């Protein structure tokens, strides 16, 4: 089956071409939506088929490379448009197409009546196309194509309602938010490109298999590999919204909600995690980078979670939650738990997509209202949304036996066992905050008394929106069972499945086996307790007093403002980077250097010639006698020279 992998990528491409070129003529939303969703559905079906096919094969025969054509070749450099079908990429493909398909279906309902309906589905298909290239690529360059491609889609979709205003630091329009996302991503991509150059210089190839093959013989701690992995990781911080490049993701919420769910929660932002996992063999060679990854992940997790506490925009809360969860994933990667990271990518895709779609359903019902302080009591009005939202919230808070529990717990356990207790502590603290802000949000949105204006008439969303919600909630419930750890008597199927991909890295790192289950049980209990505490506090506090925030703000003062204003990171970047660059470019480089100095010299040379001529022109009086007199003067001079 694997040789048909090209078709998985081709279907969304066909979908986007049909909708993009003929969408304005089709006009019928049903048809456009069906084409868009159908294309992704077909890809998903094919991915499932390949997956089943692979299940039937022996573990060592599950990895294949399908080469389509030579893409770029110059000198010693050659890359192909080739796809690598292995356990990791198939898993990611399943998540991307599966969740993607559900969100496509949801969008048919959500985008109903939008004048750019076809454009929206074109972009969504383009995104799936790019994302599939990213996860299926067998070399860095093709991966980079997907990498930038998803960035482009993110840009296009954030600014999809380009005539809408959006508030943010130095942001007025949704398009500005799109630009910010693209620019910040580009900074990451810049590092990614440098990483690629360095890889090519070191290994002479940019194909994953060949690079990993050569890496097998390298020594741990190689400094080139350190730089390679660090640069790639900086690329990942851009795409996956980690410190220091996380600032774009909260503003990316300017886009339509399905976009937030698909791109800015479930798939694209996990690309960095996938990329690091794909290069696990290289990272294993660079323990220093691994440390950086782990620390960045942990710090991002707690920082974003703390910001999430003080946000009132339903999508902003979820956005910071996403950043925080991504931090977990990197924490996992950093301590060498690649499987756990990918596992969390998968479960996170389920429950976060569900949460975002649920929030979209709420926003839809509330007529574009996003402030949770003006909601409340929606439980009765929109039960499907409420229940799915609640289930997903429990999942993210890590309540057993929901999916989030297994993946998050594995990360925390590994960070304790293979990392350090400090990392575990930060992770646990972030988990507490996560549970707190999630239930603060759930309570403010759905419970208590309605606080919305009288002219609003919330209603439950149409089936095209609720069915994906239910499907995702179901996945959020059962998704974790593929990774039940051994201590709980599970086979940890996902670990088994992914093991061949990470075998090389694990061999290099040679992590110790942990046989003492006691610690694991204790930690598990603690994390369950944390989840329950967060839920209880969050629910109690805000059920009693929906304005509890104001009391806290009054009490803590600056600390609260710090959180509410997101640690002033945007302002700091603006003052430290954006403004100085623009100002220097404008007043020094352009107005002074270009116009005054260079053009000054050029025009000065011209002016000098002009001045000389003007001076000499004085003798050109136009009076014949003067010319004659000058002739005589010339005669005198010539004669004088003859005599002398």
């Amino acid at each position, binding site marked *: 089956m694997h040789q048909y992998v090209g078709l998985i990528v081709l279907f969304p491409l066909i979908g986007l071409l049909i909708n993009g070129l003929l969408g304005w003529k089709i006009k019928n939303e049903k048809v456009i939506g069906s084409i868009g969703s159908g294309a992704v559905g077909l890809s998903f079906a094919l991915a499932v088929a390949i997956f089943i096919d692979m299940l039937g094969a022996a573990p060592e025969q599950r990895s294949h490379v399908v080469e389509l054509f030579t893409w770029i070749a110059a000198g010693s450099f050659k890359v192909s448009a080739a796809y690598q079908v292995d356990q990791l990429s198939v898993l990611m493909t399943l998540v991307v197409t599966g969740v993607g398909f559900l969100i496509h279906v949801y969008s048919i309902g959500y985008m109903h009546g939008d004048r750019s309906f076809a454009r929206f589905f074109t972009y969504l298909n383009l995104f799936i196309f790019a994302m599939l290239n990213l996860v299926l690529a067998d070399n860095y360059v093709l991966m980079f194509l997907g990498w930038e491609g998803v960035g482009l889609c993110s840009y296009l979709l954030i600014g999809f309602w380009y005539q809408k205003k959006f508030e943010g630091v130095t942001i007025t329009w949704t398009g500005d938010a799109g630009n910010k996302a693209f620019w910040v991503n580009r900074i990451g991509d810049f590092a990614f490109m440098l990483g690629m150059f360095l890889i090519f210089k070191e290994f002479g190839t940019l194909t994953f298999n060949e690079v990993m093959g050569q890496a097998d013989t390298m020594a741990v701690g190689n400094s080139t590999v350190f730089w390679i992995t660090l640069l790639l990781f900086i690329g990942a911080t851009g795409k996956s919204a980690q410190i220091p490049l996380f600032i774009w993701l909260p503003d990316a919420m300017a886009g339509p909600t399905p976009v937030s769910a698909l791109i800015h929660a479930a798939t694209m932002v996990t690309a960095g995690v996938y990329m690091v996992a794909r290069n696990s063999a290289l990272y294993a060679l660079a323990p220093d980078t691994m440390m950086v990854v782990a620390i960045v992940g942990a710090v991002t997790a707690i920082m974003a979670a703390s910001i999430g506490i003080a946000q009132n925009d339903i999508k902003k809360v979820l956005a910071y939650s996403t950043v925080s969860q991504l931090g977990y994933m990197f924490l996992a990667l950093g301590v060498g738990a690649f499987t756990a990271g990918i596992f969390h990518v998968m479960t996170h895709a389920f429950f976060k997509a569900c949460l975002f779609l649920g929030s979209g359903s709420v926003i839809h019902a509330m007529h574009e209202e996003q402030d949770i302080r003006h909601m409340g009591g929606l439980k009765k009005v929109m039960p499907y949304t409420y229940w799915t939202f609640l289930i997903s919230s429990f999942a993210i808070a890590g309540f057993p036996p929901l999916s989030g529990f297994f993946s998050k717990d594995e990360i925390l356990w590994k960070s304790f066992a293979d990392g350090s207790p400090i990392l575990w502590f930060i992770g646990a603290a972030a988990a507490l905050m996560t549970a707190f802000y999630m239930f603060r949000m759930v309570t403010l949105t759905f419970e208590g008394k309605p606080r919305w204006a009288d002219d609003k008439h919330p209603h439950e969303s149409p089936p095209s929106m609720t069915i994906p919600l239910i499907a995702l909630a179901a996945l959020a419930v059962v998704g974790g069972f593929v990774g039940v750890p051994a201590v709980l008597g599970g086979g940890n199927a996902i670990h088994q499945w992914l093991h061949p991909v990470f075998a090389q890295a694990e061999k290099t790192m040679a992590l110790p086996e942990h046989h003492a289950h006691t610690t694991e049980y204790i930690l598990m209990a603690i994390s369950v307790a944390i989840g329950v505490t967060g839920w209880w506090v969050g629910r109690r506090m805000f059920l009693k007093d929906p304005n509890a925030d104001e009391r806290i703000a009054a009490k803590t003062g600056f600390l609260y403002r710090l959180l509410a204003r997101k640690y002033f990171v945007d302002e700091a970047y603006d003052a430290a980077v954006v403004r100085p660059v623009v100002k220097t470019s404008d007043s020094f480089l352009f107005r002074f250097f270009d116009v005054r100095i260079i053009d000054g010299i050029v025009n000065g040379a011209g002016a000098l010639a002009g001045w000389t001529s003007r001076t000499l022109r004085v003798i050109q009086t136009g009076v014949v006698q003067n010319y004659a*007199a000058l002739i*005589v003067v010339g005669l*005198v001079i010539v*004669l*004088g020279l*003859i*005599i002398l």
Partner: protein
Amino acid sequence: MSSELIVFLILAAVGVLSGILMITRPNPVNSALFLILNFMALAGLYITLHAQFVAIIQILVYAGAIMVLVLFVIMLLNLEDEEPLREQMSKRHYGSLLVALLALVLIVQVIGWNSGGTLETMREQSPHALRIGTVEHIGSVLFTEHVYPFELTSILLLAAIVGAIVMAKKRFP
């Protein structure tokens, strides 16, 4: 002082004086008449140089044809007198005068007052001088050796005639 020298000096004095008077008269007619006198003196000098044919041509063409044409134009235009030279002398005029005199000094310096250089051998006229100035000799040389320039001269004169007519006649409407 030989008689030849006396004749030369008289003619030279007439030539120089008439030249100076020519350039200083306010009235163009007077100037023209002094110029004719100057040409006469030159014709005399040509005679002393045994160039009879040139002397005659000088009278005929210059004093006769050209100067008559000039007088004719002056009268045709009915010009008023220019203001006296004295009153219009400006810095520029003095400058010109100075430069011109300087040029004269330098030219004379080049020639040498009475001696020096290659001119030293030319204290007397060539014995051939008598022969080459005759009409017969000039004619034979002109129509043999210099026949091409001579014929070309006719084209030049034709062009001058056409040019003069074109420029002097009234414009086409």
